[in-house]
C-alpha cells in the first residue's frame, strides 16, 4: 500500500471527518391542523439567530415541518432577518445561504440536504519507467459508477468527482491496472504513473473499436493496437501500421497496398493522415507497399472511418491520427531491428533527467538483391533495366521538454523519401547502321514534416495545445535521353541529347491552437482554430538541350512548357467546436461543427459542417449508435492513374475546381459479452463533386509523372456513392484471440465526361471483403499469428471487341478497342494467407524479438493488372501482373 501511494503521487494533507449519519431534528409538531397550508406571505423576524434556531422559529410560525441536520449549519454565523410578506423559499434561502445545502418543499414539508461537493482530479497519466505520456488511458471511479474519462492526445485528463473517498481505477492496454484509494477534499492535480506488463503483452487484433467498455461502450475510433502491429506477418517482416489499419472492415486497399487506402468507397486522397498533428501527403513508400511510419516511433494510432469529431477537417473520408513516442526521460535505450527488406535503429534517452528527452530513429532498405531476383521472373512486375535500383529511408526526431508541471514543449521532425533510378538502352538496326537510345531516369520523392507544440494546463479543467506545423511533399524526376548512331562506315553521330526535369510539390505552413474543457463529469468540450498557408507547384517541366542547337520540333513544344512553371498559393482557415455529453450512464451524445474558409485567386469557399453521433449503451453489453457527418475537402490529388501514386499531383480547389463534399450516415449495433464482442454497422455515403483526372492525349510522361499544364481543365467532376454493412467479431481475451472483419459494400461513380455519363463501379468497389486474424499464444514467450484476406476482384475496363477506324480516302487509321463499360469486368478474387511466429525473451537487460513467417503463404498470384493480348489469337489470353508472390517474413529486434 505504501509503495502504491508513492507510485501514485497522491498525498493528501487534510483529512476531514466523515459524516456517518444524518440526525433529523423535528422542530415542532402542531397537532391541531391536519393539513396546514404554506402561507404565501410571511412576516418574519429573527435577530442574530443561528440558522438552525431561525429554521425552528420559522417552522413554528408557519406550521411547516422543516427537517434538517444541525451539522449543516455548524460553521454558519448567526443571521438577522426582518422580512415582510416574504415567500417561504425566499426565507429559506436567506437563512441557509451560509451553508452548502439545498432543500425540497413537498406540501407542508421542507427537507434540507447537503449539496454534493464536486472536486476535480486532473493531471497526466504516464509510464512509470520512461515518463512517456499515455494516450487514451482510461480513468474512472469504481465507487461512482459511470464517472470516468480517457486521457487525451497528450496524456492529460480531468475528472470531476464528489468529495469523499474514491477508488480510482486506471487502465491502459499493455499496462497493469492501477487502483488508487483517494480521499478527495479539494481539487487535485496529479501525475499518475503506470507500470507496463513485463510479460508478453496481450495481443488484440481488433476489428472492433478498442476501448474501456466501462467508459465508452463503443468508441467511434479504432485504436490501432501497437502490440499486434509487431506481431502481424508483413512482407519481409516489416511491421506496417497502415497494413494493420487495412484489417478493419470498410477499408479497401489497392492490391497489396499499391493504390492507397480507400475508406468506405472514398478516394485515397480523402484520408487525413496526421503525424503528430501534421498532415502527411504521401504516407507510403514503394508506391504503397510500405508506410512511412517507423514502428519504433509510434506511440499511439487511432482511426476514424466516419463520424469523426469536428476537430478534424480538411479531408472527406477518414482520419488516421498517429502520435510518436516521447522518448525515455530516465534511461538511455537503443533499439535495432533487421528485416529482409529494411533495418532500423532508434536511440532514446534523457537530455535532462525527468525534464527532457530525445528519440531518434532511422530506417533504410536494401532492395537491390530482391529487384534482381524479381527481374528474373517474367510474370511479375519488375524494375526493368540494366541498372535499376530502389530504396527508401526515414528519419524521425522527437524532442520534448517539461517546462513545468503544467507546461511542456514537443518538437517532432520527419524526413523520408524514396529513390529510384533506372537506365536502359533501346537499339535499332538497319542497313545504315545501329541506333542506340539510352534512357536514364532518376526519381526521388518524399516528405518533410515538422511540428513544434506547446501543451499548457490552463486550469484544473482546461487544457490547451498550440502547434506550429510544416509539411512538404515533393516529387522530382530527371530523365536524360541520348541517341547516337553508329554508321556502317564506323563513324558515330549524336542524334539527340537532352535532359528533362519534372518537379512538383505541396508545402504547408500552419498554426493551430486547441482547447479541451471539462466543465462537468458529463461533458467534454473542445474548440480551436487553425490557419494554413498552402504553396503548390502542380508540376513544372524544364528541358535542357545538352547539345547546342538541338531543337527538333518534337522537343521544342516541351520547351514552351517552361512558361507553365505554375505556382499557386492558398489560405485555409478552420475553426471548430466539439462537444461530448453523457446525459446519463447509458447515453452519449457527440456533436460539433467545423467551419472553414479557403481562399485562392480571389475566390473564396466556405463550409460549415455539422457532425453528430448518439450512442446508447444498454444492459448486458448492448450498444446502439447512429451518426451523421459532413465533410469538405479543398485539396485533391490528381494524376494519370488516379490511384494515389506519389507522382500524382496535389492541387487546390480553384474557381474551376470546386471543393469535394461528402456526407455519411451510419447506424450500428454491437454487443460485448465476456471474451467476445461483435458489431454490425451500416452506412450510406454520398460523395459530391468528386474529382478524377482526364489523361491528356499527348501526355508527357517522365517516369510516370504527367505534365500538369492546364490541369484545371482536365479534371472531371462527378459524384459517387457507397453503401454497405460491416460486421466485426472479436475475441479479445485468452490465449487464442482474433477477429473477423467482413464488409459487404457497393461503390460507384458517375462523371458526365466519362462512360458517356453512365454510372460505373468505382475502381476499388468490392462486394465482399473478408479479413480473418488469429493470434495464438503458445507460451509466455512465443506466439503465432495468422491473417487471411479475401476480397472480390477489382473492377477493370477490358475490351472484348475491336475494330478499325478509317475514313474513306484517309491514310490515318486506328484500332479501336470497344470498352463497352468502364470497369465492366472483374479481376479474379484477391486472397492470401500470412503466417508468422513471434518470439520474445529477455536476457539480462537485453530484450530480443524474432519474427519468422511467410507472406502470401500459398503463393497466390493476385492480379495487380491484367493486359489482354490483342494479337494472341486465343480467346481470353491475358498477361497478368502480380506484385507480391510468396515472400518470407523475418525480423530480429534487440532492445537495450
Amino acid at each position, binding site marked *: 500500500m505504501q509503495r502504491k501511494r508513492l507510485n501514485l503521487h497522491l498525498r493528501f494533507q487534510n483529512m476531514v471527518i466523515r459524516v456517518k449519519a444524518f440526525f433529523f431534528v423535528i422542530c415542532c409538531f402542531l397537532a391541531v391542523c391536519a393539513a396546514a397550508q404554506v402561507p404565501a406571505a410571511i412576516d418574519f423576524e429573527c435577530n442574530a439567530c443561528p440558522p438552525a434556531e431561525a429554521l425552528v422559529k420559522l417552522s413554528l410560525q408557519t406550521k411547516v415541518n422543516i427537517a434538517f441536520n444541525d451539522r449543516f449549519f455548524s460553521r454558519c454565523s448567526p443571521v438577522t432577518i426582518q422580512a415582510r410578506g416574504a415567500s417561504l423559499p425566499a426565507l429559506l434561502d436567506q437563512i441557509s445561504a451560509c451553508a452548502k445545502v439545498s432543500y425540497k418543499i413537498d406540501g407542508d414539508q421542507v427537507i434540507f440536504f447537503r449539496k454534493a461537493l464536486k472536486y476535480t482530479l486532473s493531471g497526466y497519466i504516464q509510464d512509470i519507467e520512461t515518463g512517456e505520456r499515455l494516450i487514451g488511458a482510461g480513468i474512472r471511479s469504481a465507487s461512482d459508477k459511470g464517472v470516468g474519462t480517457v486521457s487525451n492526445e497528450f496524456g492529460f485528463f480531468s475528472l470531476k468527482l464528489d468529495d469523499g473517498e474514491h477508488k480510482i481505477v486506471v487502465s491502459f492496454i499493455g499496462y497493469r491496472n492501477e487502483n488508487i484509494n483517494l480521499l478527495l477534499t479539494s481539487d487535485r492535480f496529479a501525475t499518475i504513473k503506470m507500470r507496463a506488463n513485463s510479460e508478453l503483452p496481450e495481443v488484440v487484433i481488433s476489428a472492433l473499436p478498442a476501448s474501456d467498455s466501462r467508459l465508452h461502450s463503443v468508441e467511434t475510433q479504432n485504436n490501432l493496437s501497437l502490440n499486434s502491429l509487431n506481431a502481424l506477418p508483413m512482407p519481409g517482416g516489416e511491421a506496417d501500421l497502415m497494413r494493420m489499419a487495412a484489417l478493419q472492415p470498410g477499408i479497401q486497399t489497392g492490391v497489396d497496398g499499391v493504390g492507397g487506402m480507400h475508406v468506405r468507397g472514398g478516394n485515397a486522397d480523402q484520408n487525413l493522415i496526421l503525424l503528430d498533428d501534421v498532415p502527411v501527403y504521401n504516407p507510403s513508400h514503394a508506391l504503397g507497399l510500405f508506410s512511412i511510419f517507423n514502428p519504433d516511433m509510434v506511440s499511439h494510432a487511432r482511426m476514424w472511418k466516419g463520424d469523426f469529431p469536428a476537430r478534424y477537417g480538411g479531408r472527406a473520408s477518414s482520419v488516421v491520427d498517429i502520435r510518436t513516442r516521447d522518448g525515455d526521460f530516465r534511461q538511455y535505450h537503443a533499439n535495432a531491428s533487421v528485416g529482409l527488406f529494411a533495418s532500423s535503429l532508434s536511440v532514446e534517452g534523457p537530455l535532462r533527467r525527468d525534464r527532457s528527452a530525445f528519440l531518434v530513429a532511422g530506417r533504410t532498405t536494401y532492395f537491390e538483391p530482391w529487384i534482381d531476383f524479381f527481374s528474373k521472373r517474367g510474370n511479375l512486375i519488375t524494375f526493368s533495366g540494366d541498372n535499376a535500383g530502389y530504396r527508401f529511408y526515414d528519419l524521425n526526431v522527437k524532442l520534448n521538454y517539461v517546462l513545468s508541471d503544467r507546461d511542456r514543449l514537443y518538437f517532432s521532425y520527419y524526413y523520408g523519401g524514396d529513390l529510384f533510378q533506372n537506365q536502359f538502352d533501346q537499339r535499332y538496326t538497319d542497313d545504315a547502321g545501329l541506333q542506340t537510345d539510352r534512357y536514364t531516369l532518376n526519381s526521388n520523392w518524399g516528405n518533410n514534416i515538422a511540428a513544434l507544440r506547446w501543451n499548457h494546463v490552463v486550469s484544473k479543467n482546461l487544457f490547451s495545445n498550440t502547434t506550429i506545423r510544416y509539411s512538404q511533399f515533393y516529387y522530382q524526376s530527371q530523365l536524360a535521353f541520348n541517341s547516337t548512331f553508329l554508321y556502317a562506315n564506323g563513324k558515330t553521330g549524336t542524334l539527340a541529347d537532352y535532359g528533362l526535369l519534372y518537379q512538383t510539390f505541396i508545402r504547408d505552413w500552419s498554426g493551430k491552437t486547441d482547447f479541451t474543457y471539462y466543465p462537468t463529469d458529463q461533458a467534454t468540450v473542445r474548440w480551436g482554430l487553425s490557419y494554413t498557408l498552402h504553396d503548390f507547384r502542380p508540376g513544372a517541366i524544364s528541358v535542357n538541350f545538352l*547539345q*547546342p*542547337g538541338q*531543337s527538333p*520540333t518534337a522537343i521544342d*513544344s516541351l520547351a514552351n*512548357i517552361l*512558361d507553365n512553371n505554375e505556382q499557386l498559393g492558398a489560405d485555409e482557415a478552420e475553426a471548430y467546436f466539439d462537444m461530448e455529453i453523457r446525459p446519463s450512464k447509458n447515453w452519449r451524445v457527440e456533436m460539433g461543427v467545423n467551419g472553414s474558409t479557403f481562399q485562392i485567386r480571389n475566390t473564396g469557399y466556405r463550409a460549415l459542417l455539422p457532425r453528430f453521433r448518439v450512442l446508447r449503451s444498454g444492459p448486458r453489453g448492448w450498444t446502439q449508435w447512429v451518426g451523421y457527418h459532413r465533410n469538405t475537402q479543398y485539396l485533391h490529388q490528381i494524376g*494519370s*492513374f488516379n*490511384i494515389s501514386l506519389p507522382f500524382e499531383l496535389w492541387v487546390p480547389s480553384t474557381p*474551376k475546381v470546386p471543393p469535394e463534399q461528402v456526407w455519411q450516415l451510419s447506424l450500428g449495433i454491437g454487443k460485448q459479452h465476456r471474451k467476445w464482442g461483435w458489431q454490425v454497422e451500416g452506412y450510406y455515403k454520398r460523395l459530391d463533386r468528386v474529382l478524377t483526372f482526364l*489523361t*491528356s*492525349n*499527348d*501526355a508527357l*510522361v517522365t517516369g510516370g509523372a504527367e505534365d*500538369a499544364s*492546364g*490541369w484545371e*481543365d*482536365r479534371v472531371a467532376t462527378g459524384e459517387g456513392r457507397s453503401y454497405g454493412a460491416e460486421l466485426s467479431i472479436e475475441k479479445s481475451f485468452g490465449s487464442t484471440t482474433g477477429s473477423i472483419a467482413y464488409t459487404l459494400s457497393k461503390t460507384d461513380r458517375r462523371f458526365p465526361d466519362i462512360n*458517356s455519363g453512365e454510372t460505373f463501379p468505382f475502381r476499388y468497389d468490392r462486394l465482399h471483403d473478408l479479413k480473418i486474424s*488469429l493470434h*495464438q499464444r*503458445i507460451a509466455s514467450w512465443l506466439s503465432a499469428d*495468422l491473417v487471411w484476406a479475401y476480397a472480390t476482384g477489382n473492377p477493370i*475496363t*477490358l475490351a*472484348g*471487341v475491336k*475494330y*478499325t*477506324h*478509317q*475514313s*474513306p*480516302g484517309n491514310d*490515318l*487509321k*486506328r484500332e*479501336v478497342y*470497344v*470498352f463497352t463499360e*468502364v470497369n465492366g*469486368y472483374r479481376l479474379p478474387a484477391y*486472397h492470401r*494467407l500470412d503466417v508468422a511466429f513471434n518470439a520474445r525473451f529477455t536476457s539480462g537487460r537485453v530484450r530480443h524479438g524474432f519474427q519468422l513467417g511467410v507472406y502470401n*503463404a*500459398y*503463393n*497466390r498470384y493476385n492480379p495487380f*493488372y491484367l493486359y*489482354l493480348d*490483342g494479337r494472341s*489469337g486465343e*480467346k*481470353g*489470353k491475358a498477361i497478368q501482373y502480380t506484385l507480391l508472390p510468396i515472400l518470407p517474413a523475418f525480423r530480429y529486434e534487440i532492445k537495450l
Partner: protein
Amino acid sequence: MKHRLSYLPRFILIAFIFLVQCAREVTIDIPEEETRIVAVCHFTPGETFKVKVSLSQPVYDSGDPVIPEKVDLTLAKEGAFIDKLYAATSDDGQLYWESRDLAEPGVAFSITARVDGMKTIYATSAVPPHYPVAPVQIKPADISETILSDGRRLLNVPLELHLEQLPEKNPFFAFSLKHDVDVLQNVGGEWVTDYTYEGLPTNYSADGRTLSLLYDLSEPVVLISDKFWSEDHRTLYLDAKIPYDPAKHEKPRRIYVEWRTLSEEFYRYHLSIARQGSTLPLSDPDAVYNNVQDGYGNFSGYSVEVEMVELPF
C-alpha cells in the same frame, strides 16, 4: 504449457486448409461478343457521303478486319430515303460506299446498312451551324527563325485563331494546319518558283494548357477539348513550325488553316477514342462513344472552312 500447445495443431490445421484450398490458377473469362457491322462516315456540306464499312473482330484476333463486299447501304434525309450508296474504290484500293447526293447543313441524315448474317445498323447525325474564326493575320515582325543543327531553318509563325462567336453549348471544334513550300530556281538572275511542295502537314507548339487540351485524331485534324473555351477563352494561340532548307532554295509560301465545327457525334466519338489511347498500363480507358445502333463506328457531320494565309516572308 501442455494446455497451450494443444492449440497448436488446431492453428496449423486451419492454416493447412487455407493452403490447400486457395492455391489455384487464375482464369479470365471474356464474354463472346457477336460480330457487328462497323460504319465510319464523316460528312460535310457540299460533299458526298463516303462510308467505310468493315466488321468488328474479337479483341484477340490478330488478322486484318473483314471488309464486306456486299453491303446494302441506304441514305435518308429527315427520315426519308433519298439514295442507295454505291461501291467505290479509293486510290489506294480501299473499298467504300458513296452517295450521289450531297450533304447539307442543318438537316438530319441517316444511314442504314445491311450485311448478310449481321444485324442491320442505323445511325443519324447532322451538320452543325458553322462558327468561323476571324481572318488570320500574320505580322511579319512576329515571325522568327531558328537555325537547326542540320543547317535547316525553322520558321516560327504565331497564329491567332479567334472565335468571334462562341456557341452557348457544345463548343466542339477541330483544326488542322498545312503549308506550302516553294522551291525556287534562279532564272536569269531572278528567283522564281520551280515547283511547290503542297499541303505539307504543319507542326505547331503552344502553351502547356493549350497543348494539354488538344487531341490528335485518326483524322487529319486536331480536336480541341470543349474545356478549352472555359473562362471565356476565345482565341487559340499557336506557333506554326515550318522547317525549310535555304540550301535547297526552299521558301515557305502560305499556310492553310482548316477550321471545323463539329457535331456532338463527331466530337464525343473521337474524344473517347483519344482517351483510350493512353499507353499507361494502369490508366483507366474510357468507354467508346457509339452512335451506330446495333453496330460500331461513327456517322457524324461537321462544317468546315479553309483559310489560306500568305506568308509575308
